[in-house]
């Protein structure tokens, strides 16, 4: 009787393996994987944006350039830039590549009144290519109020586009 028991056990083994690894049809399957996405403050995020002047600061983690009386750091109670003038501020803020890949950075000024430039090489504009991981560029701003009068202001957004190479 003992040999018969062995045969039954072997059959049971192969039946079990067949159930697990067969390539036959299935209904549907699903599995879970980990993906961690956090929102960091602008200064510490993938594209790090850090103020280097009193005209820019971070508000609730979001970088803000503020040439108005609302700016708590604005000097001497000033309430804005001069009308019908061109105002340049070198080294307004830094952009740091906090990611692990080399990136190119394009600045898209969504306003006719401002233009950005690389503080190190002002004549070349602000866009920079080949910023390696951990590297920083310094950015300045020119505010042109030639067509604006006293009391007129504007709000706009600045798009910083970083593309890895």
């Amino acid at each position, binding site marked *: 009787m003992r040999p018969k028991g062995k045969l039954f056990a072997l059959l049971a083994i192969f039946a079990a393996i067949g159930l697990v690894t067969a390539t036959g049809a299935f209904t549907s*399957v699903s599995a*879970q994987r980990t993906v961690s996405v956090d929102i960091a403050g602008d200064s510490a995020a993938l594209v790090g944006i850090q103020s280097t002047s009193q005209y820019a600061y971070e508000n609730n983690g979001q970088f803000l350039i503020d040439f108005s009386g609302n700016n708590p750091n604005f000097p001497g109670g000033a309430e804005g830039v001069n009308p019908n003038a061109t105002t340049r501020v070198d080294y307004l803020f830094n952009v740091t590549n906090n990611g692990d890949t080399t990136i190119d950075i394009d600045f898209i000024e969504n306003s006719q009144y401002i233009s950005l430039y690389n503080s190190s090489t002002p004549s070349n504009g602000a866009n920079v290519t080949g910023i390696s991981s951990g590297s920083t560029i310094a950015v300045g701003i020119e505010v042109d109020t030639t067509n604006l009068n006293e009391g007129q202001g504007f709000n706009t957004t600045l798009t910083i586009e970083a593309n890895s190479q």
Partner: protein
Amino acid sequence: MNLYSLNTLAIALIALGLIIPTGAVMADGSDKVWENPGITLSPTDSPNGEAYAEIGTDGNLTIDLATVGVNPNALTTIRNLFDIANNGEVSLEVWLTHESAESVRFSVSEHGTLYGEENALTLEPGQGKTVDLLIDTKGREAGGEPLLTSFDIHVDDVEPTATPEEPSSPSTGGGGSGTGGAPPSDSNQTSTPEPTPTETPSEPDGVEEGGVEVILDEPTDDPITIQEIPTSAILDDEDDEDDRREPRAVISHAHGGGDPIGRECPCEDRPEVQAAGANTIVEEGEELTLSAARSLVGSVRSVDPERRMVKAVSINVPAGREESSATIRMRVSEDRFEGSDLTRPRVGRETDDGWQMLPTRIVGQENGQLILEARTPGFSRFAVFATPEVRYAWRLDDETITAEELRTRFDEPGFHNITLNVTDAFGRTNTATYRVLVNDRPSVDIEVPANRTAGEPLTLRANVTNEIGNATVTWLFPDGSQQEGLTAEYAFERGDQPIRVTVADEYGATTTLERTITIGPVSATDVIIDRIASGVSLELALGTVALLSFLLAILIRRILSRGGGPGVRLPIPAVSMPSIGPLPIGGGKPQIVALENPTVDVDNRRFRIGHLRIEAPGGDLRTVEIVVTDGRGNEVAQKTVDLRGESYYVTRNEVVLPKSKVYVRADQHYQISVRAGDDTDGWVSRQQSPVAVPGSVGA
């Protein structure tokens, strides 16, 4: 080999068979999700794949964008992040799901999003695709909960293909939707929709090439006509007068939730909202989504100085449905954008008063075409702008957020003003203000007398804290009867008796407290009488009475001796006893030490007490109630502060908000009453008439 060793082998083989399909570390550096079906995930051989994806020690793919988080209020695209491949022998459908569909999108080039079974990607045997990750944090701040912690990957067999049918008509309508199959050219083409009730055009793939799809929130069976028109038709109709029109900021309450572009909310029309003088009411911590989509700018030039439109369509809905909200999807050839930023296109809606820039997102990108999706509050002519320069800035408290849609939460009850600043391409601005009343959720505590006798009415008191709005207290007793009011009287039976108190304020916030009250012979007298009646030793009972009387005599004697003044001396026998320490003689009931500068702030519609201080020398304060009555004695404002164990209560500039529909007037006489109670059931109250002041005083 014996049977024991065979069992061991069986267990080993079965265990091996189970491990293989669940993702062991593979020598080829991929996450073998399933042996059958043969699906693997692996970081793409690219800078992004190497930087942000890896196969962990558990053999599973892991994506890390938390060590260095993404930027707030930004669009982050991680291209070529990981590969997904079918190493099996049959065609498979693969899709992903996760909890941040509105902000995070996994997609495959030339296919689009992988989210949901409806967007499943078909992988033939041996085929692999590279997955990109798009993270949209527009309107979101830094910090807080992680945006995403996991995703689920699903695999299914490809269903057998049915017999091919004739291609559908290029234009359809009905069933609440319609698609127009206009080719990507400037030539006019009129679509005559035919009802196709079996079609489900709710997916991006339902948009015919070059076409437009309309999905009404409230479906209709009547046809919808979609016509692509030349952009010059719109430009020719505009003149300098339109260019001179100022922008107009309009704020509307949209419901966010799972809809990333928001739906209009009818809640602003609620009578209680209007009565409160607010635009909307939310609860503490509740998410509020506001949309700038109904704002207007004057002309095409106000949207883009270069008047650049890449597509224009006219959509005609059945009569009477022109102001119906809907979702519109359009396919636009990428060639028309001529290298401009593809993340910026916006669908605009032409109205009699100018252009509305609709909340727009890209829901697909395939075969050189973008699929745009926009929410519209109505119908007319629409245009796709490639480089719009209309800007929206929200300001709340001391914070400015640049976004078309604002999502926020308030933790402080009371009124909060939110402003929207709309700037057109000329730099002209307009501001609108939205008033939000943040309602607190009431809290309640039940005050039960210490002496509770079965069958005798017991007065219960609800201590309610509810800063905003008038609250109603409803009591539910064991027999099912209900009473309303801060106090309730009920004769309980002996034993554990459940009660329930529900506090509901006029703005819909409710709190329910359930409590069990034990009713029994708790007073000393009751205990003694019970024991005598039940035949317990009479001597013991009399002894207990004697002892209590003796202690009472000592207490009264000490009180009188501390009084020091003349008075009646009771004939208390002098007893010599060992010292038992100081007796707990209380310091008396609570005292209102200061009730100063009560004022009526007419402009800001509220009452204030400049300085309020209450002390409880004999116990701990439990409740402070402030009630304001008008000249006729009607209660016009009420506030209850629930305290736990504080020996004093002091505030500066205490605010009491009036009930809804109460108009605060400078020429009205009011009386402010403050009442405070402590845990020894000691109470004190005091009244004072406030003085009307301008809104700026004490604000």
